[in-house]
């Protein structure tokens, strides 16, 4: 079928081809292969030689079909998983286990159910500044009060009330829980924030609010964000760069990056729509019903 090229398509094309300003990569993913195997069975390849550099301050969306390795890629950066081949470097060094350089907001179980909202937010500060057995000295009590006032500040910034501080996670809505989870991660001032389908369980209205919030926070803090979503529109609206994963070599070949698209220069709705179309074409094969993947407007 013949396609009509528009000026927007040209702009998208130039955005893809535009040379990026090279700075020292914060995250360096080099020839990474991930395989899952069961005893007695041939291992299943999930990621096949993925290469990706992520620079400080970038907002990266990772999209792709279900099971294509989006969350696996995130877990590699988190060091929750190790590659079968290749390596993942953060600030130039390989990672061995998750640490506080990376904040993490998963889709589920993002908060500790046995702690109140305030205790959840201050947990990281308490554990790093006060330690396991040092919670009773007067000096530590003063520090703890400082943590709490810091946490209240974050709570307000997330649009939550001070009265929510004493609530337990199960007393909050899904959107409120994710706001607390973001506050819990950001109070530790991580260099990288990893969000694994963090908004996918939220209703469209709440989701749009959360998208606005995370974009504002990214602008304020300059934290590098890796945001996994299955929603092309959400990916384009939020990110400066969209990484699409897909299997080009068949089901058993494992996924690789099929699109590495800078989206930061989309200034209006037609440009955004064109970029979304581009992401959809790369991510989903022709004939896929994309209704479910449509995101709410920001």
């Amino acid at each position, binding site marked *: 079928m013949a396609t009509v090229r528009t000026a927007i398509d040209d702009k998208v094309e130039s955005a893809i081809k535009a040379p990026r300003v090279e700075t020292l990569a914060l995250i360096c993913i080099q020839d990474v292969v991930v395989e899952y195997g069961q005893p007695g069975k041939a291992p299943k390849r999930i990621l096949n030689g993925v290469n990706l550099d992520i620079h400080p301050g970038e907002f990266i969306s990772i999209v792709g079909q279900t099971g294509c390795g989006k969350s696996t890629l995130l877990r590699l950066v988190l060091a*929750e998983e190790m590659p079968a081949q290749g390596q993942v470097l953060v600030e130039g060094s390989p990672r061995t286990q998750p*640490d506080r350089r990376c904040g993490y907001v998963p889709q589920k179980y*993002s908060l500790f159910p*046995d702690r109140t909202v305030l205790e959840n937010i201050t947990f990281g500060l308490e554990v790093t500044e006060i330690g396991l057995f040092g919670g009773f000295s007067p000096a530590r009590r003063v520090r703890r009060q400082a943590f709490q006032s810091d946490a209240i500040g974050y709570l307000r910034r997330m649009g939550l009330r001070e009265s929510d501080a004493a609530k337990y*996670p199960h007393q909050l809505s899904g959107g409120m829980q994710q706001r607390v989870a973001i506050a819990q991660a950001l109070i530790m001032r991580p260099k990288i924030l990893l969000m694994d389908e963090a908004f996918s369980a939220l209703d469209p209205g709440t989701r749009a609010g959360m998208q606005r919030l995370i974009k504002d926070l990214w602008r304020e803090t300059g934290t590098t964000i890796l945001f996994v979503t299955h929603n092309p529109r959400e990916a384009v609206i939020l990110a400066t760069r969209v990484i699409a994963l897909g299997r080009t070599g068949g089901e058993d070949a494992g996924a690789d990056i099929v699109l590495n698209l800078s989206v930061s220069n989309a200034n209006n709705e037609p440009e955004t729509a064109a970029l979304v179309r581009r992401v959809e074409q790369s991510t989903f094969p022709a004939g896929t019903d994309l209704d479910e993947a449509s995101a709410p407007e920001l």
Partner: protein
Amino acid sequence: MSILQIHAQPSRTTVWILSWFLFATGVASYFWVSRGRHLDNPDDRVMPTLRQMSQAFSDATLKPAEDDEVAADAGQQSLLMKIRKSMLWKDTMATGRRFLISMGLLFPAVLLGLHMGMFPYVGSFFLRFVLFFDKIVALSLLPILFIAFGIDELAKVMLIVVGVAPTIVLDAFNLTRSVPKEQIVKGFTLGAGDFSVTYRIVLKQIWPRVLNSIRLNLKAVMLFLFAGEMIASQDGLAYRIALLRRHMGMDTIIPYVLWVALLLFLVDFGMRTLNRKLHPWFQEA
């Protein structure tokens, strides 16, 4: 409306009547049969009357055991003093002491299960052994325990530990493994180390469930404790029941059995209340 409907909603009064019906029927049946037996044979010892049991229980709570020496000023002692020197008090204290020591020894079992679930090397080292031990019928070890540890307190406490600890270890292990991976990863990203994650995240989350598990194993704890006391002991509730069996002392045995049931009910209620107070998030979540 049929009573066998899933959506049936009995009134509060109906629920109250239904829930007490079997108790009332059981008590009424006992005394009806007991009365019949006593009409046939006034010296019947198998089913004592309420008056006989009240008298025996009163003696048990106010008089020392037959094998104890009676103090010279026994008649002038206060009620509290009489109770504290009574057979029931002495037996309850002896059983209670063993019970508390055994419960205390179950705490390391929780910690072992926790570490087995968190640290793969510890898990690999202990899991197979604990699984094997869990399958051994503890009562079959009783002779070995008596030979190895003598017939003193240690053998009885060890019987409880051997009988219940593997279950608690495996329960704590499974509960630890069921904590979502996200929570553990989250702990690391917030700066926690291995032991902070283990104690401040995982142990805190599984603790109310572990308490529940221990509560549900109370009956097993008492079973092993009673077995030990009945076979080799000089005091304790089970020792007294076994001793009175030889004399067909049903007027004391039945109140003793009800006393044990009441104590277990109170311990169960206490643990449930404590769990609810200590972990308000747990019941509601």
